[in-house]
């Protein structure tokens, strides 16, 4: 990915304040502020955590394959299923969505990078720090065991006396900072950095969904921040937020958690909805049916998601009026989602469908999410939920929507955008095996859980007794889990094989899928500077409309080749934002502060010092210098950085003539 351009440092380097200049190797990755590299970092890190969360899942299924299982003791089981949930939600799905958002969003709006490139890097490193911090709990032998939902007072000091829940709370605070910073960054990026002519309603649906998600993050993360602080203060400073003996109300935790938690599930699913909204039209060779409805339904889901949270609390004693109100609001939220399902189906209807692997996964999303959505509708009926809640019926529901919806959508994205990122396709044959193993294994694992749940099998418990009739489907489900694992392994094999093959194969070339949206204007893999020049956007699916027109009879005809429409990546004079050490230094300070709160205050001092030093270094490091890293491409409207240095070196008006192309 790194462009090998010669870099001159300006004369005025001030020791540690020099901007780093490596553009290859590990130093490049540590100091990069390039949204594409950051996207790849998010993706690779998330897949690493996916393997961990997947192992945790397999352990669960081994334990539950037989009644009175002895694979894991009760205590260990609690830790494993807690970490499985925490890992999959916060360290896998969210960062995978971030990977796609980071890589693609600037490309889809025709920008050179995000609004605040160093903050973007900071978000990644903070996420990594938080993920490692959380998993440190395993290493010290005290992983959190209160469930991903961490209900108080069970998670207070009396009932969870170790350090596990502190790792949970602090770890999630750290990852929460990453999400919040990223949300602010991407919102400003979308609002301010779109290509000429790209009004909001000409943006691709993926970009829209990401934008809605950023607003959800912006407003939801502070709520869990409050909850986690209250829990930390209860556990460590003697506060009384969740201690019933002192008169506190444990439901406060549940409300705060789920006010975050429900928007969170839309944060999990909307990116995948965006991904398949790009894949399905491409592989149906038809425009997305009802673009305005797709946008508005995404916005509607974003709004309505705030009004349903207590459907997670129907049996917690909130009283019949509250239950009834949230039951009704939950029923309503099925509507915008239903609109989306219908629009994807209508897109496919009458299209000339190609079932390449991305399309297989996208179809998987539509079908599996429909199932998960239907079970969700049954939950909204509060009397019915009274039977369903805390059983495996719920486990079935959320795995159908998160795995069947969010994760399959992400895999669709992998297969679709792999050539854009890496310059070669993933193998189709391996891809089909990947898909079928995953979807068969998935349905084997989670389908029967509907039955088990309605038969009364409890969730969140380490074992079940024999004689209730749960044995057959649990064994069936456990086998299914291993088939999923096989499917994932096939994906990993595909990645390696395709990369190896690409070394000797011809390059994938331009526009391998005959796609529709602006990221495909640039060559594959994307050059470091993204676009040679600004793209004038005249319509939605601008890329498509430059390739295809209509003849006199209104039939679609090809009017230009990919070579004619695409850019060739050869421009030589873009400024790129300079790399920086400080994001990684700042991020490194945060886990130390966390350890300090748990073990010894000296760590807080060390962590605080790192953070302060990084902030100071960040503010004072030299501007994006004109002799800094140059990709090729359109001289940009770079943000100037460093408020206290000499004036802005790059005005928007500086023309390429004044910048000597640097080798």
């Amino acid at each position, binding site marked *: 990915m790194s462009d090998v351009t010669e870099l001159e440092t300006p004369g005025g380097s001030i020791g540690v304040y020099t901007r780093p200049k490596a553009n290859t190797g590990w130093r490049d990755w540590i100091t990069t502020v390039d949204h594409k590299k950051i996207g790849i970092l998010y993706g690779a890190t998330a897949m690493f955590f996916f393997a961990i969360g997947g192992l945790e899942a397999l352990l669960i299924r081994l334990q539950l394959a037989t009644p009175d299982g002895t694979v894991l003791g009760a205590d260990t089981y609690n830790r494993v299923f807690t970490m499985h949930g925490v890992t999959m939600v916060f360290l896998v799905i969210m960062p995978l969505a971030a990977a796609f958002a980071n890589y693609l969003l600037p490309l889809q709006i*025709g*920008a050179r990078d995000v*609004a*605040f490139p*160093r903050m973007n890097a900071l978000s990644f490193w903070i996420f990594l720090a938080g993920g490692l911090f959380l998993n440190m709990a395993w290493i010290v032998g005290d992983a959190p065991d209160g469930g991903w939902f961490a209900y108080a007072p069970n998670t207070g000091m009396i009932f969870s006396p170790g350090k596990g829940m502190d790792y949970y709370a602090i770890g999630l605070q750290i990852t929460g900072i990453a999400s919040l910073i990223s*949300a*602010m*960054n991407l*919102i*400003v990026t979308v*609002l*301010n*950095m*779109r*290509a*000429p*002519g*790209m*009004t909001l309603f000409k943006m691709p649906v993926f970009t829209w969904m990401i934008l809605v998600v950023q607003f959800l993050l*912006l*407003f*939801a*993360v*502070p*709520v869990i*921040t*409050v*909850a986690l*602080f*209250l829990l930390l*203060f*209860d556990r460590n*400073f*003697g*506060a*009384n*937020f969740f*201690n019933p003996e*002192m*008169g*506190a*109300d444990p439901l*406060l935790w549940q409300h*705060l958690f789920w006010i975050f938690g429900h928007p969170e599930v839309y944060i999990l699913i909307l990116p995948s909805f965006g991904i398949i909204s790009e894949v399905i039209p491409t592989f149906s060779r038809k425009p997305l049916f009802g673009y305005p409805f797709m946008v508005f339904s995404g916005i509607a889901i974003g709004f309505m998601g705030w009004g349903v949270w207590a459907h997670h609390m129907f049996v917690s004693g909130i009283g019949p009026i509250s239950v009834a109100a949230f039951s009704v609001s939950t029923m309503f939220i099925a509507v915008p989602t239903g609109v989306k399902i219908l629009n994807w189906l209508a897109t496919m209807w009458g299209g000339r469908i190609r079932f390449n692997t991305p399309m297989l996964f996208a179809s998987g999303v539509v079908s599996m999410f429909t199932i998960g959505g239907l079970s969700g509708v049954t939950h909204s009926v509060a009397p019915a939920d009274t039977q369903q809640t805390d059983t495996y019926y719920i486990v079935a529901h959320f795995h159908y929507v998160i795995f069947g919806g969010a994760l399959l959508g992400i895999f669709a994205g992998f297969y679709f955008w792999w050539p854009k990122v890496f310059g070669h396709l993933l193998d189709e044959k391996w891809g089909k095996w990947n898909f079928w193993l995953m979807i068969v294994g998935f349905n084997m694992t989670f389908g029967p859980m509907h039955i088990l749940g309605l038969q009364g099998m409890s969730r969140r418990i380490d074992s079940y007794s024999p004689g209730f009739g749960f044995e057959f489907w649990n064994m069936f489900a456990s086998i299914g889990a291993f088939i999923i694992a096989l499917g994932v392994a096939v994906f990993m094999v595909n990645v390696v094989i395709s990369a190896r093959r690409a070394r000797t194969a011809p390059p994938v070339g331009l526009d391998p899928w005959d796609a529709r949206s602006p990221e495909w204007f640039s060559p594959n893999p994307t050059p470091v500077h993204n676009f040679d020049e*600004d793209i004038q*956007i005249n319509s939605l699916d601008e890329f498509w409309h430059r390739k295809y027109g209509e003849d006199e009879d209104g039939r679609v005809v090809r009017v230009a080749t990919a070579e004619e429409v695409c850019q060739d990546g050869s421009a030589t004079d873009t400024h790129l934002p300079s790399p920086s050490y400080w994001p990684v230094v700042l991020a490194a300070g945060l886990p130390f502060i966390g350890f300090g709160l748990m073990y010894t205050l000296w760590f807080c001092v060390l962590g605080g010092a790192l953070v302060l030093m990084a902030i100071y270094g*960040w*503010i004072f490091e030299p501007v994006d210098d004109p002799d800094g890293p140059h990709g090729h491409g359109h001289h*940009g*409207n770079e*943000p*100037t*950085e*460093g*408020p*206290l*240095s000499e*004036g*802005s070196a790059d005005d*928007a008006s500086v023309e390429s003539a004044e910048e000597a192309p640097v080798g």
Partner: protein
Amino acid sequence: MADTAAVSHGHGTGTGLSDNKLLMWVFLGSECLLFGGLISTYLIYRSRFGDGPAPGDIFDIPFTSVSSFVLLMSSLTMVLALSALQRGDIRNNRIWLLTTALLGSLFIGGQVYEFTTFVREGLGYSTSPFSSAFFTLTGFHGVHVSLGILMLMSLLISSLRGTLTKERSETVEIIGLYWHFVDVVWIFIFTVIYLVPSPTS
């Protein structure tokens, strides 16, 4: 605040507004949810004071009114600092920045005095849900004010070094937005927590 120059994105499509200012407003939107959560927690717990002091018994309204007034006036001095810099009046910019920081510190001093008095009167952090909620809410607000004071001092230092010029007035504006927000949160807290009659024991 690292990227402080107003950024124009040339001939692309955008709001035409400064990236940095937009960032700060977006951030302030999210802060509403943070303080809302702490305020709601307080409201739910204000009547749960157990055997400890009740809010109606322990609050010293006259004292808190004075410190509230101090913080309110610091918003005035903040905006005067900005206005001075926008005119290129570096000297008055410095004076008003310093005044704002001093008024903020006076407010924090008042908070510290208030807290220590409460502790002496039997309201500790762990005394009751009410006490935990009260100290957490006002503590978070105080931390926000303190961070604001640090930012003001940084501005002052950069001004003394000659790098806070009229062209960079947007930096002062953005830190001012944060400062006013923190003041506005206190306007809310003072009215809802202190002035609205509280339970007594």
